[in-house]
């Protein structure tokens, strides 16, 4: 395992060299304080109470007995909560109605917040919250997600991407195809579960609402809270120094609103922390998907027709679209090309972005279908992808900023030993294990969003960067120090990076793999501007010299391109014929994802994404009970995420792929690591057993029920 690039970017300065995390020492010594750990004098503890029914109305909340319990300070609910503003378009669009805390008696899903109990200690708050009697008028609910749900609809889409796009005559091209794959796939409800539960402490200080939080974008939370509480944006400050993981779930959530409400009434700091169980309904999740992929090809594998249809669920109160079919628009061209993302409203919590939204489930279906086509055409899966490599965007017609997918496959195939692979399924046996290998492509859009930054030359010769970035474990703080050091032409130890404070101004949140790219752009422009000022000469005054940047204008001049990170995923699995257990024995991911800022932490990012993919392929599944509308076993025992013993030696590396339009040549690496992994594992399971697994996760019972096809090995393998 190396962490060096295999490409040819000359290493100049700090960017591109390995650095341990700036805050690493604080994290390994326990000194790093996360949101729920900041001490406050007179801190009160809030405990949320959530609905136990999936649809209906709150008939009554009997607060009096709870208010008489020791230490209880208040019980907030729809009968006494302050009104919140709802008629606005916030930083994330129309607000999620779950943020309209305690504004009415309606319950749209199980786990909906209905009350907040605040007490002197967390023990008192918890016991009181668990004692609170809430009576409901229950109504019939529907939480059953399935392909072909009669109420599925095509959402409006957005200017960047329509929900449905098509070209050519799909029926005609399918009819003219020598080889057709028509398969349905499904992925289950999946939850982010960062190790740190969502936590916020709110208090008022000199007329300002201060919130110490764990989020992916403090300015976004500050703006949302300002709108909700009808405050001037300058009257809200949100800070988020250390974040114990986010993965898309840590935006504005009911706990921040609850803490702010209670702090306003009690005139003292109030902390609200979600329980692990509450995170199943309050923190968002990835919707289950039902997908259908139809591929029509000539005998040599060239695609004539591509049809990718995705369906996901959303709540009855807010629309979220899991854009599973979008990945086909970037990956493969065909004479007839149709993609659509449909949605169905159910009595469930609103899903949200979760690591590689769209691409993670979408690539599972599409890349498995490609593997099925390769089998039918009797050509190598990598050769099939090479045969269908687009020269321009299949739908947009735009050129790619760079497209090094095949370079990833070539490097990956060489290192993985793909060339020695026998394509026949079910012919490798080791004791009770059947062995197989699989591959799949990965991609994720390369996005960028306007951000501002300030860089200060201090009188002592050091530099301070201020930007409302968030380091949710990505290594962004360290990466920005390296970027700033190079832009300032100094060593990184002379740069201090301050992040996670909404007072630092507008900046994009940590999401969509665009954080480090967007922030680095802003830091670079500010640093350049500062150097120009310093070049004028003179001494630095005690307060320093500060230069600011705003990338909005520069981003406006970006030429339109298909911009994506790509990757090639490889997996080897062993399938236990006796128990149906699938073990991943090794994985390799090779990525083309822009210039790599910090090889040490970038490797961790890629590996982490691949572990997510393994976990998605084999373990993760939230089962919604149709009777209660809740998740069965809503905890980390019932919802298994990959543990150490589930994960083999994984390797991640990259090929040279600088984005020439970006001042630091970055693309973004947070999501692409998960994309394609589940397909590579599923394709490997087919290669091992001869059976296609089109429904995730690939559980032992599914493997046993599916058997091992008609392979002669299967019969004696059970002996």
């Amino acid at each position, binding site marked *: 395992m190396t962490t060096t690039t295999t490409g040819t970017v000359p290493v100049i300065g700090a960017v591109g060299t390995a650095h341990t995390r700036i805050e690493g020492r604080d*994290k390994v010594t326990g000194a790093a304080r996360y949101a729920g750990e900041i001490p406050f004098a007179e801190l009160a503890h809030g405990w949320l109470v959530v609905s136990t029914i999936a649809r209906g109305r709150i008939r009554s909340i009997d607060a009096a007995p709870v208010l008489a319990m020791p230490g209880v300070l208040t019980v907030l609910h729809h009968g006494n909560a302050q009104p919140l503003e709802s008629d606005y378009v916030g930083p994330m669009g129309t607000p999620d109605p779950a943020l309209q805390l305690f504004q009415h008696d309606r319950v749209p899903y199980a786990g909906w917040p209905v009350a907040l109990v605040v007490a002197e200690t967390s023990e008192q708050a918890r016991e009181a919250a668990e004692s609170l009697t809430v009576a409901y008028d229950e109504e019939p609910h529907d939480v059953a997600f399935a392909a072909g749900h009669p109420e599925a609809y095509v959402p409006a889409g957005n200017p960047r991407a329509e929900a449905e796009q098509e070209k050519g005559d799909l029926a005609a091209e399918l009819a003219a195809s020598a080889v057709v794959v028509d398969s349905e796939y499904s992925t289950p409800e999946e939850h982010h579960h960062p190790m740190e539960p969502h936590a916020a402490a709110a208090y008022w200080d000199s007329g300002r609402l201060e919130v110490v939080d764990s989020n992916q974008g403090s300015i976004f939370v500050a703006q949302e809270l300002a709108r909700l509480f009808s405050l001037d944006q300058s009257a809200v400050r949100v800070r988020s120094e250390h974040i114990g993981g986010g993965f898309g779930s840590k935006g504005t959530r009911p706990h921040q609103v609850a803490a702010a409400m209670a702090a306003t009434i009690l005139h003292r700091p109030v902390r609200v922390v979600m329980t692990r169980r509450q995170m199943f309904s309050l923190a968002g999740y990835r919707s289950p998907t039902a997908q259908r992929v139809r591929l029509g090809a000539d005998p040599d594998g060239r695609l004539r027709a591509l049809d990718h249809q995705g369906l996901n669920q959303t709540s009855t109160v807010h629309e979220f679209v899991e854009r599973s079919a979008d990945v086909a628009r970037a990956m493969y061209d065909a004479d007839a090309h149709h993609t659509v993302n449909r949605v169905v409203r159910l009595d469930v919590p609103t899903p949200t972005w979760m690591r590689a939204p769209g691409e993670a489930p979408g690539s599972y279906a599409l890349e498995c279908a490609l593997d099925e086509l390769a089998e039918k055409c009797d050509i190598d899966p990598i050769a099939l992808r090479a045969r269908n490599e687009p020269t321009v965007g299949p739908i947009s017609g735009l050129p790619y900023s760079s497209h090094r997918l095949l370079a990833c496959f070539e490097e990956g195939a060489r290192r993985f030993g793909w060339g020695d692979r026998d394509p026949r399924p079910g012919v490798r046996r080791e004791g009770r294990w059947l062995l197989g290998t699989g591959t799949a492509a990965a991609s994720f859009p390369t996005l960028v969003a306007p951000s501002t930054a300030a860089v200060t030359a201090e009188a002592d010769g050091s530099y301070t960067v201020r930007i409302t970035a968030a380091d949710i474990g990505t290594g962004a703080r360290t990466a920005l120090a390296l970027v700033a050091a190079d832009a300032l032409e100094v060593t990184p130890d002379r740069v201090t990076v301050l992040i996670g404070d909404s007072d630092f101004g507008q900046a994009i949140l940590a999401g969509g793999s665009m954080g480090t790219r967007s922030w680095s752009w802003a830091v670079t422009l500010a640093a350049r501007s500062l150097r120009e000022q310093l070049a004028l000469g003179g001494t630095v005054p005690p307060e320093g010299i500060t230069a600011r940047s705003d990338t909005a204008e520069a981003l406006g001049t970006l030429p339109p391109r298909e911009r994506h990170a790509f990757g090639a995923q490889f997996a080897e699995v062993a399938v236990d014929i006796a128990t149906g257990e699938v073990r991943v024995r090794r994985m390799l991911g090779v990525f083309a994802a822009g210039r790599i800022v910090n090889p040490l932490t970038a490797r961790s990012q890629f590996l982490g994404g691949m572990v997510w993919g393994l976990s998605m392929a084999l373990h993760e599944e939230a089962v919604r009970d149709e009777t209660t509308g809740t998740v069965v076993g809503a905890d980390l025992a019932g919802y298994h995420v990959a543990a150490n013993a589930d994960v083999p030696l994984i390797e991640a590396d990259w090929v040279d792929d600088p984005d020439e339009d970006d001042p630091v040549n970055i693309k973004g690496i947070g999501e692409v690591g998960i994309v394609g992994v589940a397909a590579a594992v599923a394709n490997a399971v087919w290669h091992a057993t001869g059976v296609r697994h089109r429904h995730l996760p690939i559980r032992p019972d599914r493997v046993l029920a599916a058997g091992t096809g008609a392979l002669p090995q299967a019969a004696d393998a059970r002996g």
Partner: protein
Amino acid sequence: MAPSTAGAITLTINGEKHTLPVDNRTTLLDALRERLGLTGTKKGCDQGQCGACTVLLGGRRVVSCLQLAVAAEGREVTTIEGVADGERLHPVQQAFLDLDGFQCGYCTPGQICSAIAAIEEHAAGWPSAATTDVRPEAGIPPLTADEIRERMSGNLCRCGAYVSIVQAVARAAEDSARTAGRTDVTDVEGAA
């Protein structure tokens, strides 16, 4: 008269005695975090499923969310704040830092406390579910990657830093074995 639901207890934490009043319901985890300001020990699930709150109780690893503070009276508690030797990091801490055995850092204190105990358990000859030969005469099993994975599986890492965690634990185990005069305890790629 209602029975008392609170009392004063004395906990020995990182070698220091603390006398504090606690609600009898208080877990050791909450006593550390909320009463003593020792927030290095993390609350990930509060129900014994994630390992983020792992501390050493009498030298053995426990999840502190499932220990009542009152039950820890008189026992020696070691938390992440107490494992370094002054400014010099514990070899496990140093290995996690050098090899990037974490991302967000929230599971890290628990991982490190767990690893310290796991290395000692292994050195003491304790077998694990991954040990192929558990006969006493087989001696201490080699600390393979599979042994480390098995012994560290009580500590979830949602960032997925397991590959580097295994390498960090292996390197720290090598360090501690060398100190104890043993060699070649691991064969983990990337640990050296």
